[in-house]
């Protein structure tokens, strides 16, 4: 009896704190709050899907987003290493012929220069779409991105900003990329207030989210899992459209267990959900986080409150991976709803290896084992 009343009392306290927070969100008109303005992901998605569509793979969808932006914004430029001939992953094919050498151009081979140059273009009012050839090589630009881009608006009291900046970079495992063609660096950047970080997981959301990043008033880091460039083929809306940043997508609805991931891992989790249903009669809800920063706490926590169980899965190493942030927030916001400890199935705390890749990745089998364990808990 005593235990139950204690639980009820705690639930009451949590609810009242939550209400207090919600009540007071619009008290100060000095501050621009974005909570009420964003549409839900599914609304934006269905409205975008209602028009004409073309079958595209992910790199073509990315080219299409950039093409749309460049055609309507004469200040928009695309640059990076080897983008002029179309890019090493074909993402800028045909753009230089269409828009000219002053709008689509190669830079010297220097990532800190690319990021700094991009910030300067954006600060001068132009739309800068910069490419880092592999996310593994973004670290030379870490200082420009973390100390400069992310803090530009804040430190100047909003006199200057580089919001018109988007940095694109291929990320994630590719089968044989080893240490420097496989990394998923999103967690490093997620510790940086002022940045927006997106990881796409397919052709449709690549186009909608990249367009949103290009138009967004904050500097965005757009990570493209290179394994999906050719493999994700979808009916992509032909015209320009945007999907909301900061919103997760419920890819598969379910009631028993929440699976959270992003990038290529979403496709692994979709398979896991199918296997879990078949083998254990467990209905998994699969959530594609899409935006790492600021992430969609509402969608995630609503799901976990409903299912009571959650597995988070990402390719990046476990320790201080973004899964840790999700896990901590979930246990704080959903403590009374959790029926089992939050589980993380991730890459190991090693560099990303060459021949051991099949043993390194958080495979569907490792995820399936986690499902088995969490439902038995």
């Amino acid at each position, binding site marked *: 009896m005593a235990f139950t009343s204690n639980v009820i009392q705690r639930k009451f306290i949590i609810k009242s704190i939550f209400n207090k*927070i919600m009540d007071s969100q619009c008290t100060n008109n000095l501050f621009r709050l974005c909570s009420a303005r964003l549409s839900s992901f599914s609304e934006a998605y269905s409205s975008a899907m209602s028009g004409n569509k073309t079958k595209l793979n992910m790199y073509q969808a990315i080219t299409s987003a950039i093409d749309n932006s460049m055609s309507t914004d004469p*200040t928009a430029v695309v640059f990076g290493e080897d983008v002029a001939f179309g890019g090493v992953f074909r993402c800028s094919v045909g753009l230089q012929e269409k828009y000219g050498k002053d709008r689509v151009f190669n830079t010297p081979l220097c990532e800190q220069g690319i990021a*700094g140059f991009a910030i300067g273009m954006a*600060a001068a*009012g132009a739309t800068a779409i910069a490419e880092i050839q592999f996310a593994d090589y973004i670290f030379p630009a870490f200082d420009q991105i973390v100390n400069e881009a992310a803090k530009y608006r804040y430190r100047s*009291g909003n006199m200057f*900003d580089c919001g018109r900046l988007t940095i694109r970079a291929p990320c994630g495992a590719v089968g044989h990329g080893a240490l420097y063609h496989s990394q998923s660096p999103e967690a490093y950047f997620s510790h940086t207030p002022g940045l927006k970080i997106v990881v796409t997981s397919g052709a449709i959301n690549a186009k909608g989210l990249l367009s949103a990043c290009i138009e967004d*008033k904050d500097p965005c880091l757009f990570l493209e899992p290179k394994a999906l460039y050719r493999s994700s083929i979808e009916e992509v809306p032909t015209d320009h459209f945007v999907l909301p940043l900061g919103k997760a997508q419920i890819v598969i609805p379910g009631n028993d267990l929440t699976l959270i991931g992003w990038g290529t891992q979403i496709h692994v989790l979709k398979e896991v959900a199918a296997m879990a249903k078949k083998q254990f009669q467990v209905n998994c809800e699969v959530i594609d986080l899409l935006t790492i920063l600021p992430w969609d706490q509402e969608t995630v926590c609503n799901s976990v409150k409903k299912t009571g169980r959650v597995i988070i899965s990402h390719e990046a190493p476990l320790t201080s991976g973004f899964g840790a942030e999700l896990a901590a927030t979930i246990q704080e916001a959903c403590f009374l709803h959790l029926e089992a400890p939050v589980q993380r199935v991730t890459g190991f705390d090693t560099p990303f290896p060459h021949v051991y890749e099949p043993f390194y990745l958080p495979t569907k089998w490792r995820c399936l084992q986690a499902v088995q364990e969490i439902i038995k808990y």
Partner: protein
Amino acid sequence: PWTDKLQLMRPEDQSMIPMYRVLDKNGRILNSSQDPLVEPEKYLKMYKCMLMLNTMDKIMYDAQRQGRISFYMTNYGEEATLASAAVLADTDLIYGQYREAGVLLYRGFELHQFMDQCYGNCDDKGLGRQMPIHYGSRKLNFVTLSSPLATQMPQAVGSAYALKRAKNGNCVIVYFGEGAASEGDAHAAFNFAATLECPVIFFCRNNGYAISTPSSEQYRGDGIAGRAEGYGIAAIRVDGNDVLAVYNGTKAARQYAVKENKPVIIEAMTYRVGHHSTSDDSSAYRPVEEVQQWEQDSPIARFRLYLEAQGWWNSQAQQEFLTSAKKQVLEEFSKSEKKLKPEWQEMFNDVYYEMPDHLAKQMKYMENHVKLYKDKYPVKDFKTTI
């Protein structure tokens, strides 16, 4: 060209870039063809800005010693840098490092704006978020300073590229010290500016020291201007204590940058007479005599000799201006000191264009906490809307 002669290209065999000067140490023009023939009003504006900067530096430095502001950096010995601002168009974009307050002053940044920033009070356009001397002004096209060295250099190049595309006849000038020029970002900036043909003036203040590190431990080549050739960039080395040399050098550089859409490096040789900052005691690493020697050849003194010889300035004008400058600075200083800080909630604003939910929650949490623990926080020093 080919050669069958095996020969190392030794640096000591290369000729050094000469230092361009217009005035000798007595303030006389060495070669009348180099007289910039600037109207006296403009000369006097430059000179008065130098004196005002010097006056402000003295008072603000003392204020830091008294604990009234947390930090300060003086411009002693490098006041002639501001002559570069006199040849720029108002719409040219400026990126600085931190020792270019004179450029801002010449552009029209007001005394109270310097002090409001150093105090981080409610009239600081930067909203008190950065350390003192991290100035910026949208109105004056002076990009807000940041502490990480040389990061502004590739940014200036990107801005110059955007200005070139906008075809408005503007250029970008970016200031940096010889120490900052050792950063990777300096290399990136030089190379990008050259290959992407950007109208940008790289203005290096070579003052002999990066904090305690003398330039002999910073590089072994022919200074910073000596690097230009390797990047395919035009360059000039000027006497940084000679106002007229800085003026002419920057004027030629601007004409070249805007007309050719190409970068140019100006290396102004000068000497950092003051300590690096209020957190530094430079007597720990350099002889006092060296400093005294440079104080003899201050850019202000040399320019004054020139102006007096022309009959445009005299001791009486000097005395009157200094008395009035000191009075103005002290008045503005005491006004800025009395102002409240901004609302403390400004800590949460402008991280993003719009405040995300998680940040709004953190702000709300802190509001509730401060209500409960009001007496534990300096609330009375801050503005409030409640």
